[in-house]
């Protein structure tokens, strides 16, 4: 009996001690961690748009984020977008499933807090009232240069061969693919894992919206000249040659990775679905913004 009491006390004490050590570290590191994650995302985004350290994004360019929500009110579903306004602040626009404008509620949140999902949900919830429930769906990043849209960045995830593959797509204003980056995946190394290689990702580059809509996967080896152009970094091919060869293969389908047809098809269909849905949604959002004359910076 005496034993069990000392055991309880000692275990409790060691748990508290461990908790203090971990908690203290968390307090000291959490800000730096958040900063890093954000910086990393920004780096990927700029990388997709072709901006690097030596070739930074122009001063006149800006990044705007629109967050999409599924809103339930009185058992009726609607879609909500949290968008920044041209003159400071944010507004939450609700649109019904047929694309008709329902309401626009001003949301009081700062630029620094809006990137944090919890804070954002709380503030939007307060703006809409208690009887509505919210579910965060995804976000769209809109890049502008002098107020003109130059690109969309779409983070998205879809099932791969094993688990979800998450990726970021960059589109130009006509929905042609500017670039594609695999953020996370758990495909087999050497087989499906090759989706993160340049020669696979670059196949998508430059595909127009029309070409993307009927994009299929073919199970033939990649032609040697195309492979060299896709791996321009490795093979040292000149930019003019790369552009010429890529032009030839612009309307071709995606060449499947050896031994990883499922992963290839997953990425192809995933990209297709993301772009198609996005093109539909942004047209509705643009319509509403225009009709209601809501001034947004993008």
């Amino acid at each position: 009996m005496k034993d069990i009491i000392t055991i309880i006390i000692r275990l409790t004490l060691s748990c508290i001690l461990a908790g203090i050590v971990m908690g203290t570290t968390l307090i000291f590191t959490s800000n730096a961690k958040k900063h890093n994650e954000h910086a990393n995302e920004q780096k990927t985004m700029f990388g997709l748009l072709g901006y690097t350290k030596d070739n930074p994004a122009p001063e006149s360019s800006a990044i705007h984020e629109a967050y999409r929500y599924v809103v339930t009110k009185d058992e009726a579903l609607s879609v909500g977008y949290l968008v920044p306004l041209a003159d400071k602040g944010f507004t939450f626009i609700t649109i019904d499933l047929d694309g008709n404008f329902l309401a626009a509620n001003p949301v009081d949140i700062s630029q620094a807090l809006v990137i944090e999902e919890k804070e954002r949900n709380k503030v939007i919830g307060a703006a809409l009232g208690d009887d509505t429930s919210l579910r965060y769906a995804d976000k769209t990043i809109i890049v502008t240069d002098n107020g003109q849209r130059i690109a969309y960045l779409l983070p998205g995830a879809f099932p791969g061969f094993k688990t979800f593959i998450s990726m970021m797509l960059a589109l130009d204003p006509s929905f042609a693919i500017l670039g594609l980056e695999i953020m996370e995946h758990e495909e087999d190394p050497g087989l499906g894992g090759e989706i993160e290689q340049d020669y696979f990702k670059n196949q998508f580059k430059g595909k127009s919206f029309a070409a993307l809509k009927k994009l299929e996967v073919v199970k033939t080896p990649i032609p040697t000249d195309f492979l060299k152009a896709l791996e321009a970094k490795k093979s040292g091919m000149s930019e003019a040659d790369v552009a010429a060869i890529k032009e030839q293969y612009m309307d071709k389908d995606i060449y499947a990775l050896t031994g990883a047809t499922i992963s290839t098809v997953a990425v192809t269909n995933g990209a297709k679905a993301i772009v198609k849905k996005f093109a539909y949604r942004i047209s509705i959002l643009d319509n509403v913004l225009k009709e209601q004359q809501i001034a947004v910076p993008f």
Partner: protein
Amino acid sequence: MATDKSNIQLVVNGILNENPIFRLVLSMCPAVGISTTMMNGLMLGVAVLFVQVFSSVTISIFKNVIHPRIRIPTYTLAIATWVTVIDLVLAAYMPEAYAKMGIFVKLIVAFAIITMRLEMFACKESVNASFWDGIGMGLGFMAGMMAIGFLRELLGLGTLMGYDILGFKPLLFFVLPCAGFFVVGLMMAFFNYIEIAYKKAKRA
């Protein structure tokens, strides 16, 4: 009971006589699962090295106040604490290393080699000896993982540390999960063979 080995002997012991993978046959899951490339082996090795040293020293310091009947939960708690701390610190101050090592660090809580070393060594020995034993075990684990990774990466992908060596992929089989068992088994047999041959030569 104090060990009669010097610090250097403790380190060498961890790498050769009591190599965690090939001699103690502990932590086989990562040895089979993650050793697909040499870089993976190195990263996991570094992570294990830190956790092993920190946990060994912690347990060695507190060895007199740990109740013998709850020592295993206490070890797990100590390991989990250090894993969390290392994970957080890496994520905050070394984001590039964390991008590569992050997933490995979180796995370490469940590694048999660390708990076993705390039970066999750190809870009986001085802080100094535990520190060097931790370093030896960590380096031994790293060496073992890198050796397996070397073979699997070279034969499976034709690369080493990510650099193209052969220019083609000889046997893709070696990077698939099941090949881990073959590589570990064959390497273990090879090292045992060397040991037997060495002993024979010594006797003769």
